[in-house]
């Protein structure tokens, strides 16, 4: 079906539906946050009612047309990259907060509600929604569910999957189905857990019920400077080992600290090899007690200086360097490639050293800004896409880093998702039997593979072609390389 015919057929089949079908008007939808990949869909549709979403899916199911759902388009792995022969289902207009229920400490939301808007709406009831991806001003709750989004405060309050009560989906056939409910448990298989983070492969989110939490009385940030990246990584493990779970624990290496300082002047020590930001929350007397314990651990771990925020203003200033770190690093090179691997916390120092060695060998600088408390690394590989093999070299280093994470018992993605970006890396984390189960689970929801095809789960053929990439039972792909 050509673009014009499909647009007309959809408009006829779904009364009142906004259909976008000219290349110029489709341009804003050609990529998500992973802008290196671009593809125009055949058409984009912007339903403003759940019934329209159902009608679009019914139409596409009948006509065997692929459907890619899109929230705010802030995803970093190409999960919402359109399908050339498909419909892009944009859920941005379904953006109403349906209910804030302070008694039940929950909120019922349409999928296009922005993450930050939930906490803003809950604040008058002294409640907040905890998962806070860095894109929280723009990203939407439907996308958060699809990606199982994380954020700075996941260390203490959990990921999206830990903060959901129910999700209503439209199935590939166009039917409504609610997974979970208003209660904390439901009989039967935990399909809500399976659906969370399924990257649009299993169904389209049209309503989300999230848990809200009481807002802590007070928050403060400790900034600790370290003379080596290794010591800072070990300090993170030491805080957790001491039985303290801070609200957030973030690390930045020297390159990131200097870039952030040049960009926003947050007052970071420019000469530090690494800076650790540790957020604590609670009643003032509780904070005082925890602060003392954390400071003792950090000093013992080799912190060369510790600054404590003494006001909300100071706290926000200390955070500003971290929150602006990505754009700040972006000023250091024409392009950067953001990785998202996770590792057990005890290997943080070791893996950061190993990344530095690989960065030097590849001749590509790497800045590290990441959720250290969760063991979730975000190495930013600096490169120039305009040099002949710039992209290829950056990707090669990226895959090497992800293979390193897998070898250390970690994962190729902690919160950004697989999308199309990490399909190859998936082959290093999973063997054919697991991939076969993923395929079968996909088919249980979407037997004809119409929902977000080609994303999240690589084909066995793709992994077979990569061959040498596969890290089986902890063996690195290049055993000849020196280990650090």
């Amino acid at each position: 079906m050509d673009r014009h015919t499909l647009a007309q057929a959809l408009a006829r089949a779904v009364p009142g539906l906004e259909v976008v079908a000219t290349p110029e008007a489709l341009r804003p939808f050609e990529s998500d946050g992973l802008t290196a990949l671009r593809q125009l869909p055949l058409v984009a549709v912007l339903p403003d009612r759940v019934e329209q979403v159902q009608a679009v899916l019914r139409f596409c199911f009948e006509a065997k047309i692929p459907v890619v759902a899109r929230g705010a388009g802030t995803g970093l792995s190409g999960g919402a990259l359109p399908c050339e022969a498909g419909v892009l289902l944009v859920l941005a207009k379904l953006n109403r907060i349906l209910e804030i229920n302070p008694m039940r400490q929950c909120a019922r939301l349409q999928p296009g509600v922005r993450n930050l808007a939930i906490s803003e709406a809950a604040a008058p009831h002294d409640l907040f929604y905890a998962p806070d991806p860095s894109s929280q001003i723009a990203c939407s709750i439907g996308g958060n569910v699809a990606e199982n989004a994380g954020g700075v405060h996941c260390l203490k309050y959990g990921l999206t999957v830990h903060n959901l009560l129910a999700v209503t989906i439209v199935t590939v056939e166009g039917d409504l189905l609610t997974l979970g409910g208003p209660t904390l448990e439901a009989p039967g298989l935990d399909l809500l857990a399976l659906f969370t983070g399924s990257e649009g492969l299993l169904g389209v989110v049209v309503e989300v019920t999230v848990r809200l939490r009481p807002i802590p009385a007070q928050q403060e940030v400790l900034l600790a400077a370290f003379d080596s990246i290794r010591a800072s990584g070990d300090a993170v493990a030491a805080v957790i080992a001491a039985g303290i779970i801070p609200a957030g624990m973030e690390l930045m290496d020297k390159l990131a600290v200097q870039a952030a300082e040049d960009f926003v002047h947050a007052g970071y020590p420019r000469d530090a090899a690494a800076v650790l930001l540790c957020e604590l929350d609670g009643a003032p007397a509780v904070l005082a007690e925890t602060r003392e314990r954390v400071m003792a651990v950090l000093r013992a771990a080799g912190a060369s200086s510790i600054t404590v925020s003494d006001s909300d203003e100071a706290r926000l200033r200390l955070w500003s360097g971290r929150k602006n770190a990505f754009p700040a690093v972006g000023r250091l090179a024409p392009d950067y490639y953001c990785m998202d691997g996770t590792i057990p916390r005890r290997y943080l120092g070791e893996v950061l050293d190993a990344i530095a060695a690989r960065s030097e060998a590849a001749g590509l600088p790497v800045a590290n800004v990441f959720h250290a408390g969760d063991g979730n690394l975000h190495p930013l590989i600096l490169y120039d896409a305009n040099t002949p093999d710039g992209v290829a070299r950056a990707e090669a280093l990226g895959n090497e880093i992800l293979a390193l994470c897998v070898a250390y018992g970690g994962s190729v993605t902690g919160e950004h998702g697989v999308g199309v970006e990490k399909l190859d890396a998936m082959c290093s984390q999973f063997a054919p039997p697991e991939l076969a189960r993923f395929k079968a689970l996909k088919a249980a929801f979407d037997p004809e593979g119409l929902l977000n095809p080609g994303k999240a789960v690589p084909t066995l053929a793709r992994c077979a072609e990569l061959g040498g990439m596969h890290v089986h039972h902890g063996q690195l792909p290049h055993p000849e390389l020196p280990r650090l």
Partner: protein
Amino acid sequence: MSAGPAPRRDLSLDPFVQDAAERIRQAAAAGVVLIPRGNSTRDAALRAHAGEALALGAYAGIVQHTPTELVVTARAGTPLRTLVAALAAEGQRLPFEPPLGDPRATLGGAVALGTSGPARPYRAALRDALLGVTLLDGTGTLCRFGGEVMKNVAGFDVSRLMAGSYGQLGAMLEISLRLEPCPEVTQTQALACDLDDALARMPALAARPGALTGLAWLDGQLLARFEGGAVEVALDAAAAGGETLPPPVADNLWSTLREGPLAPLAGEHLWRLALPVDAPVWALPSARWAVDWGGGRRWLSTTAPDAAVEQALSAVGGHGLRVAPSVRRSPQPGALRALEARVAGAMDPSGVFAHGAAPGEAD
């Protein structure tokens, strides 16, 4: 320089695993139904179900516990009490406070039933703490989902799907769980009141951020448990009011709530209900109640017919598990049941585990 990462264990070389895999393959080929079993201590919680036992209780032991990591990996046959004791020796615990049951009850059984205890609304559910599962699927193939890291969004979340799956998706071999440090101080406040009064007071107690890890009503007392640092616990307990219970008395009450606080009398049916916290107390004949999760979980023993309970449940959007005289779950929409069956089929294509021993919707 360092030793680098520990090599990943290759379970496919383990004779126990090889035998179990062969057993599954043969059963699948012969059309025999297998029931994955630990030490068979929780039969009363299972639907009566014809098939041969796949005995997994012997596959026991803690595989890896790195205290600094707050993660444990143990074989599914490990007795839960053994695991809990080993963690306690390192000052750590399971955040979901599961019922411990019989001394031989296993970790695998706990995951298969998916039951969380009093701390569930304030700390974590069992599925929240589940980081990774290694299992034999319905084709007898070894699969490893998730891992030992806190964050992992690669592939579908099959690990968490195993919580409450009643053995219908595969035979679990190794299980990785997130842990939490044991609190420095635990204190329980009690206030004598009736159930309506308790339910009316609970939302205000739950609205305060802080050290609350249990909110229940049992035997005419509203109970609020606080855990954490000494300063925080003292502050929150004082704000809650009531009298402070002696620790042994309090521990006894919380373990009663954890293990199941009501036993049905002759002629009564026992239910474990999941309800919105603001659901009213139902007027039912000879109803005895115990309440946990700040009103979100209610135990009910009653002579009322099941239909009356199920009608009351559907009116508030709740779910119920009839625990005695035999297990049965409250009805679910047909489309959801059908999807569950397809998901089970994805993990077990030949139906060798035949939907396990999960409670059905009929007697």
